């Protein structure tokens, strides 16, 4: 029994120490968990988000809510199968105050479940799944990026304004693509147009030739697509090589031409897309942001860096409202809900479902830039269907 007493003693001591440290936390650091892809296809996006986040912290004197920031990072590998385990590492093991992530929607959905179950604050700096601020919305779940619906809806309006009546859509058969097409269709058909055919191909298949042949046979007024990355580059080149560019206008959500214009070469020239960020925005915040980012990282920032930057701004707004105390979650949430974020994309507020209410820009590809043409829709809010909050 000697041994047992000993163990009890040690346990009691460690509990007491824990309690002591627990109270000491009030003037401790704020713990930020970054769950982003560091390897794989989305590695560059994860890096841009991290850079953006850290840039805001640096501009804020290296602090959030007046405290030093301690980062805990996990590479989510964009693998939904590992998402729950990875989120648990940050939330249960490291006990972070806020978890920021991620790029891949499937991973973000699993993360959101863990964060919600543990009542941990979560900020999504990219994943566009409509569900995150729709049926799965939660008081502790925020987003600084977009819903798949938003840019697509804006493009539906633009296409209708251009006088197109019949449109064919094409995307990969996965959630992001299908939500994007839904958004486009909603706005386009409200304005009197008709989506005559919705075509899909399995993700991440890139053999588009059969669809181009179908499009040529259907002869619609325009084509709307949702593709990203290498698949986007290939599609645009194939579309041009099939001679369709000159007769049937092509439109897409902004991801079509983000980071892919160099690979597209001439085929990408003049493409019109919609997104919540663009090159050549006329606002001082963006100019300063780009300059600082280029200085710090020797890189041009992109939309992902902006979303990371705004995630830090949003959390700062919450902490400021809570007197800098990361444990006062209710006050932080109130602060974040009320915040007006001075983003490089243009100022935005959050909807009731915690998604940005933001301007969506119409952009045209010029060289490797997506130059702003006009604001397609001002202060567009996602309808947040299914969100009971």
């Amino acid at each position, binding site marked *: 029994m000697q041994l047992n007493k000993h163990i009890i003693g040690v346990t009691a001591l460690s509990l007491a120490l824990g309690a002591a440290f627990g109270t000491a936390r009030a003037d401790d650091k704020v713990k930020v968990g970054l769950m982003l892809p560091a390897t*794989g*296809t989305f*590695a*560059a996006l994860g890096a841009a988000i991290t850079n953006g986040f850290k840039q805001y912290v640096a501009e804020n004197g290296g602090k959030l809510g007046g405290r030093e920031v301690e980062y805990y990072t996990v590479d989510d590998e964009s693998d939904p199968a590992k998402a729950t385990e990875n989120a648990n590492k940050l939330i249960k093991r490291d006990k972070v105050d806020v978890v920021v992530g991620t790029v891949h929607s499937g991973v973000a959905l699993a993360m959101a479940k863990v964060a919600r179950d543990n009542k941990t604050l979560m900020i999504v700096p990219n994943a566009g799944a409509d569900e995150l601020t729709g049926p799965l919305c939660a008081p502790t779940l925020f987003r600084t990026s977009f819903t798949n619906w938003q840019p697509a809806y804006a493009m539906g309006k633009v296409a209708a304004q251009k006088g197109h009546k019949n449109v064919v859509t094409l995307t990969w*058969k996965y959630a992001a693509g299908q939500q994007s097409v839904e958004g486009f269709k909603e706005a386009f058909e409200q304005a009197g147009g008709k989506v005559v055919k919705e*075509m*899909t*191909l*399995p993700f*991440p*298949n*890139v*053999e588009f*030739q*059969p*669809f*181009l*042949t*179908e499009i*040529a*046979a259907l*002869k619609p007024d325009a084509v709307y697509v949702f593709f990203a*990355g*290498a698949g986007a*580059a*290939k599609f645009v*080149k*194939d579309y041009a*090589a*099939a*001679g*369709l560019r000159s*007769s*049937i206008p092509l439109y897409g959500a902004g991801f079509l031409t983000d*980071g*892919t214009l*160099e*690979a*597209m*070469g001439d085929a990408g020239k003049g493409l019109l897309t919609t997104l919540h960020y663009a090159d050549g925005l006329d606002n001082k915040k963006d100019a300063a942001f780009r300059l600082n980012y280029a200085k710090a990282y020797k890189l041009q920032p992109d939309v992902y860096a902006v979303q990371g930057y705004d995630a830090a701004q949003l959390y700062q707004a919450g902490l400021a409202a809570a007197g800098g105390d990361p444990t006062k979650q209710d006050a932080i949430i109130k602060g974040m809900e009320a915040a007006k974020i001075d983003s490089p994309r243009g100022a935005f507020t959050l909807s009731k479902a915690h998604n940005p209410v933001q301007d969506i820009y119409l952009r045209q590809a010029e060289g490797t830039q997506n130059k702003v043409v006009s604001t397609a829709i001002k202060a567009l809010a996602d309808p947040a269907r299914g969100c009971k909050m």
Partner: protein
Amino acid sequence: MDFATFLIQTLNALQYGLLLFLVASGLTLVFGIMGIINLAHGSFYMIGAYLAFVLTSATGSLVLAIVLGIPLALLFGAFLEWALFSHLYKRDHLEQVLLTYGLILVFEELRSLLVGNDVHGVAIPAFLDASIRLTEVMSYPVYRLAISVVCIVLAVALYFVIQRTRLGMMIRAGNDDRTMVEALGININMIYRVVFALGVALAALAGMLAAPISSVFPNMGGQVLIISFVIVVIGGIGSVWGALVAALIVGFADTFGKVLLPEIAGMVVYLVMAVVLLWRPEGILKKG
């Protein structure tokens, strides 16, 4: 679907099938004929595509890039065979799987270190950068047709080398019974080195030719790996003609599957594989 569209879709299917044969041809040699399970086949394809990108940027010409790239790929293949694969012929398939899976990781990491993670495009050579008008809105790029021609030439050349030359005979004999071939005084090690190098070069060539169409991007090898195995297995392991027939079948199944059965387009190729293997468990054209 009207008749003109049907004809164009048939052309799409043929052209895609031939492209698939090109991609699978290196695997036909290494897996089908030498009997090595080579999961790194896709990586060699990826390496070819990146070689095309780097060399085209440096020399300004894809043709020159291919002329330079093929000997590089041959040397690289011969080196890998000497350093790694030659130790595995007598081992079991699982160890080949482990080695070649490891190679995928190594090559992807090297690619990331050397060229980065961005998507890059490769320009089509000027003399092939044209298209042929098919209908009032649709044209067909000449470059795709040129690839098809290269594929047909390669298929014939491969068949000829494997079935009709002394080297081909030794390769086939070596796969059937290595020890006996060695006992007959043939330097089987050298032959295997040559064949493996050829396999790597074919995969790299496929990558180089596909680069202007598909762009070059991280993990691009993964996309071709599975379909290549499907083709070699459907065709009958060890048969060049079989692989060609299988590639065309897959091309047709994929093209018409996407148009006619969009709901299950992702499965059509595998359903075809299942049906073929039920009908002929050894593949369409079993060797011998």
